[in-house]
């Protein structure tokens, strides 16, 4: 089958600049929406997945596996664990055992108490937290000190987003109010690509005092990978065996990755809603596109009849129309992808666990471009078929 020249499709785009603008802009909006949905889902999944350390095991109270915030375990657990399990990583004699308190509390910026409080994940930590959470690094200031006279905290890089304020409001030296009590920011930290960046960390003892508890939420330990040749290191099973030997502690072990993986699946319905919303709006956009393309094709039914009279097959004409439509939507898709990469990638989004950055990666871009192409094909086919339906003599009489 002989096709119409590609030039014909390209030049047809220029027939109506306003229609071309509508097609390109419409496709760009739909693709942008797909990118946002994709970036949202990827960003959330990756942030939760990346939060778990590769060799970390988290021990929490039995029955609280769904959320570490509800967990309570004896404060003595870290010492017992370090003494009982061989193969826990150490550095300069310090074991990678981090007792932690996880709690969600209302936080406001400043000390005036006028601002609307936001729920923020607070983590009470000891200096060992810096060992087990390898992705965390202090970028400004210093580590908070317990009982130093003033209550001190360090904040993650996304704290401003979570609190709904500018980053300048959560710089070192500024104050935040946690549950009605003022705390001074003494440092800022980053933990790229993880939800930890949206947290506020404070000394463990202060956290326990502030929350009036004598228990901790969990213990996070880093194991040295087991080496068969030397017999050194430990596996998850060793930690699991420990919890069985100490039923009195009522501990449940879970790899940190498994824990955050479960959290990710907990957010599954939100991801589905994001996709369904994007899909529905895309379908709406598609109908708009169908209308635009129909108007474009319907205005030249006589020309379509002429091409058939010359000897072009209908399939060749449909193909040219698809080329024309796809060129417009692909251009819209490319514009949307450029906006996505340069303006949306990394944009912080709040959610109940804290915040994460939109992830506009290759897969999301690929999906966006495919959507643009699909819009072109699906948007062109029904109007093309409809406009080629009249017989040639009827088409030649079209105004």
């Amino acid at each position, binding site marked *: 089958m*002989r096709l*119409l*020249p590609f*030039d*014909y499709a390209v*030049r*047809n785009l*220029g*027939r109506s600049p306003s229609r071309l603008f509508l097609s390109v802009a419409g496709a760009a909006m739909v693709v942008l929406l797909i990118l946002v949905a994709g970036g949202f889902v990827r960003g959330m999944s990756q942030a939760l997945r990346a939060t778990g350390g590769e060799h970390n095991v988290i021990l929490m109270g039995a029955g609280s596996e769904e959320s570490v915030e509800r967990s309570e375990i004896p404060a003595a657990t870290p010492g017992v664990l370090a003494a009982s399990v061989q193969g826990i990583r150490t550095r300069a004699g310090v074991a990678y055992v981090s007792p932690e308190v996880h709690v969600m509390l209302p936080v406001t910026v400043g000390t005036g108490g006028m601002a609307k409080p936001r729920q923020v994940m607070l983590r009470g930590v000891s200096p060992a937290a810096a060992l087990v959470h390898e992705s965390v690094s202090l970028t400004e200031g210093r580590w908070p000190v317990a009982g130093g006279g003033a209550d001190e905290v360090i904040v993650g890089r996304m704290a401003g987003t979570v609190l709904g304020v500018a980053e300048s409001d959560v710089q070192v030296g500024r104050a935040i109010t946690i549950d009605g009590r003022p705390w001074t920011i003494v440092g800022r930290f980053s933990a790229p690509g993880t939800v930890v960046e949206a947290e506020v960390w404070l000394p463990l003892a202060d956290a326990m005092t502030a929350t009036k508890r004598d228990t901790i939420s969990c213990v996070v330990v880093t194991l040295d990978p087991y080496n068969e040749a030397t017999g050194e290191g430990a596996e998850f099973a060793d930690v699991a065996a420990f919890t069985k030997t100490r039923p009195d502690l009522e501990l449940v072990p879970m790899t940190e990755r498994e824990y955050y993986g479960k959290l990710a699946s907990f957010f599954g319905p939100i991801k589905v809603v994001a996709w369904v919303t994007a899909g529905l709006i895309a379908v709406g956009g598609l109908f708009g596109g169908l209308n635009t393309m129909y108007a474009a094709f319907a205005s030249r039914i*006589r*020309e379509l009849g*002429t*091409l*058939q*009279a*010359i*000897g*072009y*097959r*209908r399939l060749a004409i449909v193909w040219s129309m698809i080329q024309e439509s796809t060129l417009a939507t692909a251009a819209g898709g490319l514009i949307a992808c450029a906006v996505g990469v340069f303006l949306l990638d990394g944009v912080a989004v709040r959610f109940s666990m804290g915040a994460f950055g939109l992830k506009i990666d290759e897969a999301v871009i690929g999906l966006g471009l495919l959507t643009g192409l699909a819009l072109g094909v699906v948007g062109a086919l029904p109007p093309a078929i409809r406009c080629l339906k009249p*017989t*040639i*003599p009827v088409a*030649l009489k079209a105004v």
Partner: protein
Amino acid sequence: MTTNNTHSRTLSPAPALIQCRRLTKTYKKGDNTITPLQELDLDVPAGDFLALMGPSGSGKTTLLNLIAGIDRPSGGNLIIGGTDIATLSRSKLADWRSTHVGYVFQLYNLVPVLTAYENVELPLLLHSMSARERHQKVSTALELVGIADRHDHYPRQLSGGQEQRVAIARAIVTDPTIIVGDEPTGDLDQESAQAIMNLMTRLCEDLGKTLIIVTHDAKSAAYAKRTLHLEKGRLVEAADLAARRESTVPQPV
């Protein structure tokens, strides 16, 4: 056979290029069945220049469209160059048109986004040939219709007469078996119409092309070798036509 030859009655001994036998076309319009063409017999020899005339709804354009292969008969046979085109599939018929038919439209029907050159080149893209050969054919066609100097103009930059010349170049560029024209001068002023009809006459006389045109204009029809009149889907004999014309002339009281 019911041919009405206004110029001569010489019959070609060779089989006619176009043979219509009991050619019928009907279509539904609401609850009514319309029959624009009724069991029409017609032979058109190669090299003929035939003008089809008749009132609106007489079936002349239907007959032209059937011969051009852009419409299908409801009954009868339509044999052109030995092929019964009524039996061809839709795609085969499209291929047949690209080789055997050049169509000239009343409103020129040039593609507005293509230049004169590209419009003429369009039918050639349906055939296997080198770009050089294509260029040569397009240039020859444009020269033949006297519009070579406007080859890079878009239709909107041409006058009606010039557009129709480009349309004729597009119709002849593939060297088709027959050239059909539906009111080819219908949208032109008298001067341009004359020039176009002179050009079509040259195509027939100098290049030996077979031309069939539909026209309302007796002046345009006069350029043809013969004129056929249709009424209610049937050919009208010259004698009948003359009698009918006489009967419509007001009689002195």
